[in-house]
């Protein structure tokens, strides 16, 4: 369970171009549910996602993850919490070119210091699960868009996090790929994972597996259901 109290995020504090991207948000994200943040671009949903996912610190306000206060934690512990709690699927996938799919998947686990052999097995298991077993040794720039996304999802799962965070996952995908993504999200939900998605794509927001819809505008939550 993730709770936010009066969270704000201000950029360029005290300068002429100061922007308050998130203003006083209270929000609770339940375990094992699929939550979608939606809103037009510039509404602050991606910033809120980075704050929830511990990628950025809130300027003010508190964030608790399973009861532990994480705002104000030194970076290395915040990272530890982040690695344990969140797996990220970025809009542009952000795979490292020149590395194989397998190496990309293993990357988030490097700082945990798990043995190399175990990581290889785990990464190959994940790639196999997403039908990419034969692509494991291939450098990622040779993968198609859908394959790259599945590698990105496999990478998000390598540390077995409780929450999968996906930023605009369907922005560059055709209908068939969207269905594929939804199927994976369904799988994850069934496996007990919490899924947090930002999207303004109606194919996502209207999907039956979505448990909660949070609508943002101008840095605030204007509607949360249920």
């Amino acid at each position: 369970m993730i709770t936010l109290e009066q969270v704000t995020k201000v950029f360029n504090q005290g300068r002429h171009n100061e922007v308050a991207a998130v203003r006083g948000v209270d929000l609770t994200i339940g375990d094992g549910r699929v939550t979608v943040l939606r809103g037009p671009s510039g509404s602050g949903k991606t910033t809120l996602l980075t704050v929830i996912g511990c990628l950025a610190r809130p300027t003010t306000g508190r964030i608790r993850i399973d009861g532990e206060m994480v705002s104000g934690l030194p970076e290395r512990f915040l990272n530890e919490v982040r690695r344990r709690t969140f797996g990220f699927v970025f809009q542009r996938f952000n795979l490292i070119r020149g590395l194989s799919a397998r190496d990309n998947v293993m990357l988030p686990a490097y700082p945990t210091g798990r043995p190399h052999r175990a990581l290889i097995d785990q990464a190959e298991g994940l790639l196999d699960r997403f039908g990419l077993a034969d692509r494991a040794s291939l450098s990622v720039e040779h993968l198609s868009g859908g394959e790259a996304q599945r590698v990105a999802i496999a990478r998000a799962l390598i540390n077995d996090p409780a929450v999968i965070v996906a930023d605009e996952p369907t922005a560059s995908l055709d209908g068939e790929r969207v269905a594929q993504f939804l199927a994976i999200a369904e799988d994850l939900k069934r496996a007990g994972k919490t899924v947090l998605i930002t999207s303004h794509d109606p194919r996502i927001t209207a999907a039956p597996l979505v448990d909660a819809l949070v609508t943002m505008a101008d840095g605030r939550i204007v509607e949360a259901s249920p």
Partner: protein
Amino acid sequence: MRAAFERRRHLVDFAVGSLARHPTKNLGLVVTYALVVFLVGSVMLYGSAIRREAAAMLSSGPEITAQAMVMGRHDMSTSADVAALKGLRGVRRIEPRLWGYLWDSAGAANYTLMVPPPSDAAHAVGKGEAIVGEGVARARKLKPGAMLFLVSPSGKFLKTRVKSILSSDSALVSSDLVLVEEADFRAFFELPADVWTDVAITVTNPREVTTVAEKAALKLPRHRFVTRADMSRTAEALFSWREGLTLALLAGALVAFAILAFDKASGLSAEERREIGILKAIGWETGDVIALKLVEGGLVSGVAFLVGVIGAWAHVRFFAAGLFAPVLEGWSTLYPRFPLAPSIDALEIATLAALTVAPFTAAILVPVWRTATADPDAVMR
């Protein structure tokens, strides 16, 4: 413990992979770096080899050299002077020596003509014979058995047959040497029979050198007594000073190199910036990225340092440090050509590292930190 080790291993793996993925990026840096190590290393290795050479030469020389002085200038010693020194307590041997310089206009070089002392049986020469240094042999294209003709300033002519050529073990000092027989020497330079260039004094107990020199000075007040310690101090100071001065001149190159390293480390390509952003976003800490970049820097340093040191060693060993020899050795038309033995010792390696690796590392610290503290949410903006 295990996890910390694995973590480090992953970092090194990734750093190696990252260098391999951008092979051209660091190539220029490694080449420049190796060049800097090579330059500084050559100066230092050559300097130390030459000092060792000088020390070896001095260690075989006499403990005390006595020179007659007239009005503060060197003058000839007489047989009476030599006799006055005889009977001095604590002295093992007193040997008057004959040596002098000859400007050879044909070869446009300065030779040192010398009469080998009677105690040096290995280099004994008979009348009409000569033993020449390696430099002389090279300049005059001499082989054992060849004839060597010398003309004195007053037009006297000396014809000798080359008996042998000095081995190049201590070529730095023997390169320009011509050893001839005493009667030939005196006739050539028109010297009377009872004068000598200087007097070499060998002492029984090396701890008594100063005392013996003081006592001798009382007997021969018009002589100057130079001890081996004085000479080695002078040689050490002179060669060290030359070496240090050359290094100080190279300091400009070091600063330029540090600026290059700083610039390289600051000016990351868009691709590298993106990679760091991704690593931060997927859960690497600032400390991990700093460690990663320092490992990369360490690998670059390691390769460049190794290449540079090996290059410098070869430069000194096989090319007698052709680039710096004139500065370090002092001026002479007959440079010795001999295999110097650059022995690499811990002090030299440590100094070389302090002069090259330390500035490099210092120069990349701030850029590395700036890279590593990239915001993890940057990839989502």
